[in-house]
């Protein structure tokens, strides 16, 4: 008898182990995919896994990453933000143009204030007036791009004396051998991730995104929560503009055009649901880095830069599809 019991237990244990592995694979599928990609690229290219290349990729991805951290919070709160691309143009043009006029410190402060004001407009319209976030931020995308063009008169801006200004540190500087954009990205991501996981503020955002009515009945001030997510998003855009402006030391009027979609692609790839109430900054970082490494890997293998867009197309849909299929235990929908 004892041996049968033992056998049963062994089978149960085995089953548990297998289920645990499957659960792990389905929960962290994107991470596994990330590792497989890295492994595959490292087989074909020697430089791919070198330290300098990895740092380059992370540095390149940090601008999109910084914005994506903010937009992730907006999405967890149950809304969308398409205006970040135009806001990035706005903030970069502003900080670069004001640098020569009122000095770097003044330019940075003014840029942060004005960017946060745009975020506040988004937040007022969506949080307090309860308008559809997709259309409001679409309208803001167009309006803010118009503001940039009116402000600059359609001309590109640049910083005259690029060699001796401390403004350069944000985009070009290194601290302990690590690029400043990467440090900024990491610090922002850690603060926001800790804030979302371990504070009551984070739990409130999850509650508002998951079930707004229930959140309100639990005494959460939903309007303020949504409003605050847009301020966070605007703050992240301002940080990204700091990096971008300082790295290029100049700016085109439409420098941020299309960023909103790259940011969304990274967030979706990471596995954050667009419906709100779920997701994490950690996943978003993985998503953004996957896009960065795929771009870099394809370039190292000698493919032109636009092949990454084809790969992005396939993996975005695959990632979301497999996630859905796992939840409904079925690959395809059943309706006709």
């Amino acid at each position, binding site marked *: 008898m004892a041996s049968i019991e033992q056998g049963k237990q062994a089978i149960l244990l085995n089953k548990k182990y297998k289920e645990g592995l499957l659960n792990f694979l389905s929960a962290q599928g994107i991470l596994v995919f990330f590792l497989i990609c890295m492994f595959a690229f490292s087989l074909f290219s020697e430089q791919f896994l070198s330290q300098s290349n990895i740092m380059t990729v992370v540095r390149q991805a940090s601008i999109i990453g910084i914005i994506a951290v903010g937009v992730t919070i907006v999405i967890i709160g149950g809304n969308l933000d398409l205006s970040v691309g135009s806001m990035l143009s706005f903030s970069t043009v502003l900080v670069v143009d004001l640098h020569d006029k009122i000095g770097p410190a003044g330019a940075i402060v003014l840029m942060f204030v004005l960017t946060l004001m745009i975020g506040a407009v988004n937040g007022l*319209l969506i949080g307090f*007036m*309860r*308008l*559809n976030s*997709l*259309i*409001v931020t*679409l*309208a*803001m*995308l*167009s*309006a*803010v*791009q*118009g*503001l940039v*063009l*009116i402000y600059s008169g*359609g001309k590109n801006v640049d910083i005259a004396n690029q060699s001796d200004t401390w403004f350069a540190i944000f985009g070009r500087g290194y601290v302990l051998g690590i690029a400043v954009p990467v440090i900024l990205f990491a610090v922002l991501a850690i603060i926001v991730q800790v804030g979302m996981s371990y504070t009551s503020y984070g739990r409130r955002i999850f509650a508002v995104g998951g079930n*707004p*009515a229930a959140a*309100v*009945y639990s005494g*959460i*001030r*939903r*309007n303020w929560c949504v409003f605050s997510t847009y301020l966070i998003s605007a703050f992240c855009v301002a940080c990204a503009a700091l990096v971008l402006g300082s790295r290029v030391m100049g700016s085109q009027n439409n420098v941020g*055009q*299309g960023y909103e*979609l790259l940011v*969304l*692609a990274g967030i*979706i790839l990471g596995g954050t649901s*667009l419906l709100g109430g779920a997701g994490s900054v950690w996943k978003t970082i993985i998503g953004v880095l996957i896009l960065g490494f795929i771009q870099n890997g394809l370039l190292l293998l000698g493919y*032109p830069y*636009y*092949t*990454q*867009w*084809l790969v*992005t*197309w*396939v993996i*975005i*849909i695959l990632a*979301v*599809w497999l996630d*859905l*299929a796992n939840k*409904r235990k079925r690959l*395809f*929908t059943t*309706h*006709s």
Partner: protein
Amino acid sequence: MNMINMKDFLKGSGFIQPIWVFVIVITVFFSFMSEYFLSIGNLGNILVQTSTIGLIALGMTFVMINGNIDLSVGAVLGLAASLSVGLQDYGITIAVIAALASGLVLGAINGLIVWKTGVNAFIVTLGAMIGVRGLIFVYTEEQSFYATNFAFSDFGAASIGPFPVLALIFLVCTLVMHLVLKKTGHGRNTFAVGGNPEAALDAGIRIGRHMMINFIIVGFFAALAGVLLATQMGAATPNLGRDYELWTITAVVLGGTKLTGGFGSITGTLGGVLAIGILRNGMNLMQVPAFYVLVILGLILISVLIIDQRLNVHASKGVSI
């Protein structure tokens, strides 16, 4: 006019849609501001200029009434334009057919993925928007194409009597799609699926197929708009059509179609498209820099949203704190 009628009117349930009142108001305004505005030639111009976004908006109206959205239309437009110019060595007819077919196929792919995988249309078409742009670059290898056969670019400038051909194509397509939406089973089912997918499913409507047909429709119109835009320019660039999805969605939303699905009309969309076209054209004639149009359009879009919400406050009232 008492208060209740006023409300009905602004909600769009009356005989005239609010966007058309706006169109009439800005038409009157610009005709006072510029003497050239109301000339036949300029009105034809407006129709030709709006035909590109207008054609896509026709398809987009179907997709949005259906409760979906298509972000890939700008990229599909660019691919069709490149194909219609790049394949002209095989003859214009074959080039145009291939371009239109590419739109049908890409629409079908989008629709099939949305239907079979159940992934949100926003995500599917966001992926397609990035990927199809990649296809354009793979096909063109970053080159712009120029039409060497003048029959192609002559078509874009041709007119029957005083009416430009492109404007006529747009108006005929508008009429046809209006009838499809109002008079056919597919049109009715499109509303039903958008209004309540589960109820539609229970009623025996094949919701997946209707979604797919609508994606094919919008793909076809995006491709048609691409071909016509290429005939206007006699050329195609790989970046053609960037941001067109935003303009199209703006036009459709201005026309009163709801993002949530189940509500909308082709006549409203025509009004939305004309409003954008007249604003751009009129402000050009008044020599206002083009930048201001972007800001004004954004403000109008938000105002429309606020008015719409204030009027439907009882229908959508949730709990508020």
